[in-house]
């Protein structure tokens, strides 16, 4: 069995199974279908690429949404 992968999701260290994708991470955080964007290591991953983008060791994944402000 392959080892879990250590990543940072929204600033918190997490272990995820190998071959976890951006789409998996988003689903684990929110059920919102709209208004969400993802950056991996500060690079935006377009929604169309979420299912095909696997996250690797030490990747920083940020999942953002619109909140009250400004």
């Amino acid at each position, binding site marked *: 069995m392959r080892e879990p992968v250590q990543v940072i999701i*929204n*600033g918190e260290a997490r272990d995820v199974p190998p071959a976890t994708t951006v789409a998996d991470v988003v689903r684990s*955080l*929110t059920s*919102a279908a*709209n*208004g*969400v*964007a*993802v*950056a991996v290591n*500060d690079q*935006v991953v*377009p*929604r169309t690429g979420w299912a095909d983008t696997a996250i690797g060791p030490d990747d920083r994944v*940020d*999942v*953002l*949404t*619109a*909140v*009250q*402000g*400004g």
Partner: protein
Amino acid sequence: MTAEPTTAAPGSGPRATADPLVIAGREFGTRLIMGTGGAPSLRVLEEALIASGTELTTVAMRRVDPAARGSVWDVLHRNGIRPLPNTAGCFTATDALRTARLAREALGTEWIKLEVVADERTLLPDPVELLDAAERLVDEGFVVLPYTNDDPVLARRLEQVGCAAVMPLGAPIGSGLGIRNPHNIELIVEQAGVPVILDAGIGTASEAALAMELGCDAVLLATAVTRAREPALMAAAMRDAVAAGRMARRAGRIPVRRYAQASSPDPDRPPC
């Protein structure tokens, strides 16, 4: 034969709605742009947004909170209000670019309210980072609306790099200090070829009206409404103040005189 009434019904005269705000080729029927920060709940926020009549409203971008209930995006969407994402919380051009790109992806809009502030205490714009970020975002195809100091030179530079509007502050964010330097706001308005939106500092309705009387094209405010005792009521006050100030500006105010000028015709002097 009965004569038709010739007097117009109250409220049927010329209105600000016949005078749309145009930013980057898009028309808005109201000149009040709202923010969403500071409201005690999404329900209170929604009531205030509806009362304000706004058609464009800012939101911030933050990490998803799995425990959050409801979303500001849903509130805007169901009321047909366009979201204007901001880069609040950014201190460098690099931060602001990253946030703007994420906002574009999340909300499907090229429009960005650009905020690059210098420090937490004043939240005043950092002009060097702001101009740098504005230029780079324009190059990437964003419609950039920068929150800026009340500095006519910086406002001109922001316009020159291609910003779609300039948004000078009246006073620091959330301060309610009103418009501290109306002269500078007038100078910015005089030279601007893009809309000038008074952003930040408004505390009450008369200050929103003053911004419009000074020649601003629109007012952006949040705290004055969201932290008022009755947010929806203040939102309605702001809506009317912005409309009134705009109409007064268009109507052209009378010159200020040092002494009285009788407004009644000279009476025949009665015999003593």
